[in-house]
């Protein structure tokens, strides 16, 4: 057992810290730290700075821009990025569609999309959930019926985060409506959002913002070469994607940074004694989350999430929520008009998306405990 980082990992951490705090524009990082919304341009600018240095998609295969890092180095990269307030590479690109294309796509589709995806030249939207397919994602009904060299897509997707910025959307569509099981007959299809018949309609959330959308598809014609992998194998790719999504979702570094902000504010207002117990408790739980993330990382097979990643999803989301609750409470009556209360409300989402915490409990009970 060892606590200290090796000299190499220590140097790696210094290198990351130096890069994130000097190369990514301060005006963008301070907005992240103040928990303000970024513009599309700011997202793109930040990711392109990372990508130019080869730091946007370290988890991808090396030939497509990935890094041959250890799990610990990936943890350090992620942690330092969040501590410095660097916006994470857009998850839809870097953690979701990119790895699916890299693992399951044809050479042709990799060449078409991967470089532009890493550089955020293409902004991807996620077309998974539907009005009647939330936690029960496999019951999705959007269809893609083959006609010659095209699929004709009809249906509706929802909860499409930042879909208003989307250039392309990666979709789960039903290509075989007669399949025996609902998990069969699903395919993974890429659609240009400027194609006629695609309509994006924003949904206002309880914090007043518009970060999610409904996306409608009416006789949208999509070339068959936009299919990723094999037809009717989409559910396999989706499970792979959701497993990756869960690992990054713990947001340890961001919660640590926000808790440090809470501590600082409590101190400034002379309220540290009142909130010390809550802060100590949250630091303890974040310590538990981070050391668990390190344990899970150390025992993950390449590309395959550890079953205990459900623990990270549950606890990570709870702590994101608890820290934003503390920040709101420290605001006092000013919370009525402050951003903190809106962020707190907005953060209700984290225990719902990425497989709701109840879905995670089902996974733990079934897969790990055998109940």
């Amino acid at each position: 057992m060892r606590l200290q980082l090796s000299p190499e990992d220590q140097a790696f951490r210094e290198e990351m810290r130096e890069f994130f705090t000097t190369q990514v524009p301060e005006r963008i990082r301070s907005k992240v730290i103040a928990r303000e919304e970024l513009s599309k341009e700011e997202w793109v600018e930040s990711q392109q700075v990372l990508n130019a240095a080869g730091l946007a998609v370290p988890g991808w295969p090396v030939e497509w821009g990935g890094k041959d890092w250890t799990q610990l180095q990936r943890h350090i990269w992620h942690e330092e990025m969040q501590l410095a307030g660097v916006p994470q590479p857009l998850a839809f690109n870097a953690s979701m569609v990119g790895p699916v294309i890299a693992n399951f796509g044809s050479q042709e589709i990799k060449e078409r999309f991967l470089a532009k995806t890493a550089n955020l030249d293409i902004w991807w939207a996620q077309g998974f959930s539907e009005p009647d397919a939330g936690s029960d994602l496999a019951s999705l009904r959007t269809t893609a019926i083959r006609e010659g060299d095209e699929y004709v897509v009809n249906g509706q997707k929802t909860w499409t985060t930042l879909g208003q910025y989307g250039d392309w959307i990666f979709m789960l569509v039903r290509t075989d409506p007669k399949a025996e099981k609902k998990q069969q007959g699903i395919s993974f299809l890429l659609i240009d959002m400027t194609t006629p018949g695609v309509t994006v309609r924003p949904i206002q959330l309880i914090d007043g913002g518009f970060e999610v959308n409904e996306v409608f598809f009416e006789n949208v014609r999509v070339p068959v070469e936009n299919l990723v992998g094999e037809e009717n194998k989409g559910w396999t790719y989706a499970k792979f994607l959701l497993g990756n999504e869960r690992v990054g979702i713990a947001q340890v570094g961001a919660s640590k940074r926000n808790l440090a902000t809470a501590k600082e504010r409590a101190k400034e207002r002379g309220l540290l004694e009142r909130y010390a117990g809550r802060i100590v408790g949250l630091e303890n739980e974040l310590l538990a989350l981070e050391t668990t993330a390190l344990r899970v990382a150390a025992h993950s097979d390449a590309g395959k999430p550890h079953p205990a990643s459900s623990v990270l999803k549950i606890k990570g989301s709870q702590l994101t929520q608890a820290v934003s609750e503390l920040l709101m409470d420290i605001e006092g009556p000013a919370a009525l008009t402050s951003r903190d209360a809106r962020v707190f409300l907005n953060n209700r989402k984290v225990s719902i998306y990425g497989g709701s915490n109840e879905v995670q409990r089902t996974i733990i009970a079934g897969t790990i405990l055998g109940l």
Partner: protein
Amino acid sequence: MDFTIDSEQRDLVAAVRGLVTKVYDSSETRRAATNAEPGFTAWERLAEMGVLSLPFEATPAEVSLVAEELGKVIAPDPFVESIVLAGGLIEAVGSDEQKEEYLDAIAGGEILPVFAWAEPGRDWAADAASVTFSDGTLSGTKASVIHAERADLLVVSAATDAGTGLFLVTEGYTAETERTHDGSRAATVTFDGTPAVPLGAGGDESAAIARALDLARIAYGHEALGAMQVALDTTVGYLKTRKQFGVTLNTFQALNFRAADLYVSLELARSVITWATVVAADENSSDADIAAAASQSALQVNRAGRHIALDAIQLHGGIGMTAEYSVGHYASRIIAIGQLVGDEAFHTDRLAATLTEHDVLDPIG
């Protein structure tokens, strides 16, 4: 940071597991051992195996691995109390002559030492106030001294003009022993002009006492962790086999979700408790680092421990309340360990005192 254990450590775990699962092969055997005197039956064999010398020869990593195995069978033998804590103090503070006189005998199981430190009406504070030392004798009362009656040697903390000192006592005191809720024994020990010799040079030993208590807390964490693991495993096994309404209990999502939450608590606690051992085993760690790690571990022992211990009983239903069944004894031991290491409020206060010394808490050095 690296949590993996090497092959020698794996062998140690296997040997200790082999021994204690044989000595305490059922809840009934263990209960019978606690109901007879002195209340534990694996001691000689642990000594023969060399386990009782580990704190003096190996690192906190080996100590923790052993404690976890003892926790899995809730072995009533006072490994942490006598060896890690009392023995650890003699090793840390004792003169060369004292170490020579006692350490081998302790490791061989011939002398059982205990540390008398808690005082009536006080919390887990490490300083002594009610027991005082002057003119070669001790006076005053210590509380909750585990196995004081069986002990051959008491290490006693006492107030002196120079601060809190440590003293060795072999006779001339009274011990009023009671059974603890987890089947052990704890005594109120009264000194009245009791002859005592200083352990070591006889000065202020506050720092050594604090460090020894913190190292013991970290070892206790692993004992609790072993017990939590088995309490959860037992509960999961019960949910799969117990039938009500004509079906097994794992048919009910409400119960499965609670078991899943116990698993979350267990895995998070495992990480912090193991991390604390890694801190203790790192030669670059300061006393303050070890104190902080011990408090972080103790918070998990209390929170996760109570969550798992109490829900394990609830999910069993009535059978979990019985002395005949194992899970209640596990719950009792987990709760007792919380009472030995210090409760959530105590450790929260300790950590709050250094809250502004860091911006974010970083587990990796």
